């Protein structure tokens, strides 16, 4: 039932597209780290016209499926003259979707900073951007790093969704191979194992970091 020879023979094909999967993960993560911070800062703004769009975006994007968002970007943008590759579309969707999660992570980190830090910054006459960059964020971000690491792993596990718009990542490659051999048992099991082998040690790392942080 389980064909070892076949499994071994397709493993190189699968490993070959692993870099693409990892690249999608990291680029998407980069987008969400930057855009998530922007959203977090915007939703703390004192100006309603800045605060409201950020909050609405977070609420809406968080509560709707990533897969539909991927299709949205892939099919709708070209209608307005923006043609991007499937990979780019997928990575942007992934990044935007998780930026809403990361904005919450930033928010909790910012809220955890002692109120006295703001008051001290005012007392020292720091400007607003100085307060954020020199005082608040350096304290708010480091404690959130394990949680962010968690989201990096989550995003890695979401990359198979990109196969829906034919990005040649792991699942797409397996589908392609399967259409010739029909050996889906080997192919999909291998993919599952690959994900587990890569994500499990990372999540152990994150848990260790969380524990260390909790002890501090």
């Amino acid at each position, binding site marked *: 039932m389980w064909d070892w020879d076949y499994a071994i023979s397709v493993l190189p094909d699968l490993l070959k597209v692993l870099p693409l999967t990892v690249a999608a993960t990291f680029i998407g993560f980069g987008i969400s780290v930057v855009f998530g911070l922007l959203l977090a800062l915007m939703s703390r703004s004192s100006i309603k016209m800045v605060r409201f769009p950020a909050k609405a975006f977070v609420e809406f994007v968080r509560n709707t499926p990533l897969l539909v968002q991927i299709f949205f970007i892939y099919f709708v943008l070209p209608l307005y003259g923006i043609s991007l590759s499937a990979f780019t579309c997928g990575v942007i969707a992934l990044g935007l979707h998780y930026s809403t999660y990361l904005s919450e992570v930033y928010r909790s980190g910012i809220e955890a900073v002692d109120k006295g830090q703001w008051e001290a910054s005012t007392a020292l006459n720091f400007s607003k951007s100085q307060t954020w960059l020199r005082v608040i964020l350096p304290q708010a971000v480091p404690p959130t790093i394990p949680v962010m690491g968690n989201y990096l792993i989550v995003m890695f596990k979401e990359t198979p*969704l990109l196969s829906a718009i034919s990005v040649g990542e792991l699942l797409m490659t397996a589908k392609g191979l399967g259409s010739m051999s029909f050996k889906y048992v080997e192919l*999909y099991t291998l993919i599952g194992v690959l994900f587990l082998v890569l994500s499990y040690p990372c999540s152990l790392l994150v848990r260790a970091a969380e524990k260390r942080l909790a002890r501090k």
Partner: protein
Amino acid sequence: MSIEYIVEFMPSLLRGAAVTLEITLYSLVAAFVLSFIAGLARLSKWRIIRFIAAAYVEVLRGTSLLVQLFWIYFALPVLLDINLTAMQAGVLALGLNYGAYGSEVVRSSILAVPKGQTEASIALNFTPYQRMRYIILPQAIRSMLPSFGNLQIELLKGTSLVYLITITELLYAGMQLRTYNMSQTTLIFTLLLVIYFVIAFAFNTIIRLIERKVSVGRS
């Protein structure tokens, strides 16, 4: 102009939404039951039961939902020589996946109940079963609710994946409409997102109501 299209599209989208709701509800029940079984099993005094539960949780959390869905739909029937409908495969995958996440919620909420509660129930001579059933779980469930609420939304969003194994749910209905109305792509996807959002909003509201109801008497 787009009002006409909305009126035209809505019936098929709502039919799709009904299927989405159906899958969501079945999967929620499956995930909920599995959450408690696996969550309690991870606190068992028998090492072997703890190990099996932990293996289930780590494997399901360590691999991708879509890969699990494909594995269950395409590989499992071959391995076991059984027939699975797309619907069964979808519910199984969603239930198993979110059950694994839910079990972590159950476990951590039980562990978060203060030790004094267990001690007081020992002092009052409750049996181990009674301690869990009447003292620990009722308190743990309160702290589970917000996390379960989040998981419920994640599960709802996850149901869109079963489109890829050709279940005619909401996303499928939208994609179908799109093939005949290419020019209305933007409207169709916007409608899809709004419908998902409305369902999620309803779920959030329900969970919040339940939360308020069970938080009676707590400071």
